[in-house]
């Protein structure tokens, strides 16, 4: 084995890059340059065969300019295999002694579970978690309800400042987006209605379709989903951050019940705002319906207004608005519940926020399906 310029190409390309050169013959080789983490792979490749050959080999490291800990580890490995290191510089000796003296154990391997067992385990965990989640939700909703009712009975424990702040944040600030969404959803339903009903010559019924679906379902549903994503998540994040900074514990130590000061004002605020937002969404949806009628059906806004009382009545409005406070109660409860569940770390705030939004939207849809069946049976 003769001179092996391990890293010649790169060396000529970039002079600032460290290089290592192996030179010499037979059992005696010499290293020169820098044996550092960036050149380790090359040095190892050049010495691979040699280090396995026979005995009484020696490696001269006197011309090694720099050596770092991975390089020293490599030299220690060679020494353990019976290679004699000669000409070790004084400044490298301390490093070699330190690294060679370390009691190194390989990193333990993480036990891997076969795929099919992982699926079984996950299914079991999922079922177990779902049961506990359901129990948690029921317990928390019950506690929140009882605290809210007791706050109603003892109005001095209500916190009007906190409630009004949350009303502003969850309600007034949400008005533009909710109004816009309601118009959009009316436009979407209107277009689909016209397209589907025109072949039967029934495109005029699009007005009925838009008005009824907006008032009964879409207005409240869009609002609830928007509020769950906007305010439910904000509740989780706010309370979660308080939880990570131990503010919730500070409240408890002061003898103040977090349910009373953190949960009840949010629940009450959302129960106030969601019906109002729903009403706005209903009005905006009907305005969207008027626009659709004008552009697609040539029905003027005045005609639209005179037709409206004939296609919808108070019960349609009532059905939508009735659901709003119930949705609001659940969205606020789920948001607060997950906020209080945050444990210490900042990443759990993100995790709980995601869960809160998913769970509250899921619950809203489940409740909505339940109400649809209920009102159908009641004939409302």
């Amino acid at each position, binding site marked *: 084995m003769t001179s092996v310029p391990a890293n010649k190409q790169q060396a000529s390309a970039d002079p600032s890059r460290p290089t290592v050169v192996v030179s010499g013959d037979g059992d005696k080789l010499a290293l020169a340059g820098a044996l550092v*983490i960036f050149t380790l*792979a090359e040095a190892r490749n050049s010495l691979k065969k040699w280090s396995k050959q026979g005995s009484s080999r020696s490696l001269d490291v006197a011309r090694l300019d720099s050596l770092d*800990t*991975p390089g020293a*580890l490599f030299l220690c490995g060679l020494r353990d295999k019976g290679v004699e290191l000669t000409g070790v510089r004084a400044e490298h000796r*301390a490093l070699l002694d330190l690294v060679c003296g370390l009691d*190194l154990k390989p990193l333990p391997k993480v036990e891997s579970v076969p795929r099919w067992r992982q699926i079984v385990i996950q299914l079991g965990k999922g079922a177990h978690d779902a049961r506990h989640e359901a129990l948690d939700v029921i317990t928390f909703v019950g506690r929140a309800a009882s605290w809210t009712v007791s706050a109603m009975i003892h109005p001095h424990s209500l916190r009007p400042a906190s409630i009004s702040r949350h009303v502003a944040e969850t309600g007034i600030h949400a008005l533009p987006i909710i109004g816009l969404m309601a118009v959009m959803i009316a436009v979407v339903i209107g277009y689909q209605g016209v397209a589907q009903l025109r072949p039967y010559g029934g495109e005029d019924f699009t007005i009925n379709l838009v008005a009824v679906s907006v008032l009964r379902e879409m207005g409240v549903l869009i609002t609830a989903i928007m509020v769950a994503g906007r305010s439910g998540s904000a509740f989780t994040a706010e309370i979660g951050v308080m939880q990570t900074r131990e503010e919730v514990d500070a409240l408890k130590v002061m003898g103040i019940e977090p349910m009373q000061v953190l949960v009840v004002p949010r629940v009450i605020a959302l129960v106030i705002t969601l019906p109002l937002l729903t009403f706005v969404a209903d009005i905006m949806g009907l305005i969207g319906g008027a626009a659709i009628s004008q552009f697609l059906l040539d029905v003027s806004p005045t005609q639209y207004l005179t037709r409206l009382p004939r296609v919808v009545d108070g019960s349609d409005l009532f059905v939508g608005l009735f659901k709003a406070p119930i949705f609001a109660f659940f969205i606020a409860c789920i948001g607060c519940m997950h906020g209080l569940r945050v444990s210490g770390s900042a990443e759990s705030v993100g995790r709980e926020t995601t869960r809160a939004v998913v769970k509250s939207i899921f619950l809203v849809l489940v409740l909505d399906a339940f109400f649809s069946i209920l009102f159908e049976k009641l004939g409302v």
Partner: protein
Amino acid sequence: MTTRTKAQTEPILSARGIVNRFGKQVVHDKLSLEIVRGEIIGIAGGSGSGKSVLLKTLVGLHQPDAGEVLLNGKTIQSIGAAEKAAQIGVLFQQGALFSSLSVAQNIMLPMREHTALPANEQEQIAAMKLALAGLPADSGIKFPSALSGGMVKRAAFARALALDPKILFLDEPTSDLDPIAASGIDALIRQLNDSLGITVVIVTHDLTTLFTICGRIAVLVDRKITVDTADKLMKSDHPWIHEFFHGPRAEGAMKARNISHGN
């Protein structure tokens, strides 16, 4: 040999005329600092004196409003990512370990990005860094959330050392630690400085750390910096520096220094 001694006295990092402003508030006013190769230097200062901003400026995370930071004579902004990673290691105050990676994966991340080493070799090096930082090998597969405060600092040390940096910045390495763990970290810093020759810059309030392991102390006061040995700073007549080095806590720390220096 002459070239080596010259290299040793040359500053590895120098900050010149650093000005940092936030709105109208001037935090640093044309301060200059030279860090000598192989030394342990402590940066001290009151809360809000801009220690952390200075640290961020020195490692190139913060662009100062004026002035420049030179690492080995090159401005820090002009140094490429891989070279910078090989030159500078930073231990952040909270450790800043990536929570989605195990400790060993945390240590291997810079190696994976900047070297062509095979995985088994990276693991071997990671195991060595863990041992250097005084952690058992089985902590390598643990996730940062499962570590105690002292172990987080040690794991973060191991990661900061991943590419064998020439200069190591430590932000409050002993804060939030019990005295035993803190002394362990002090000993670790000194050992790394002795055996690996790493230049260490410590930002700290911990007087014991400042007195026992720092060769020089840079005190940030009045938007400027005063650098000297602890003994000379103790004789300073600047009121804040005097208070800092002669308060009741300083007395205790001085005792620790005398014990550790054996006199």
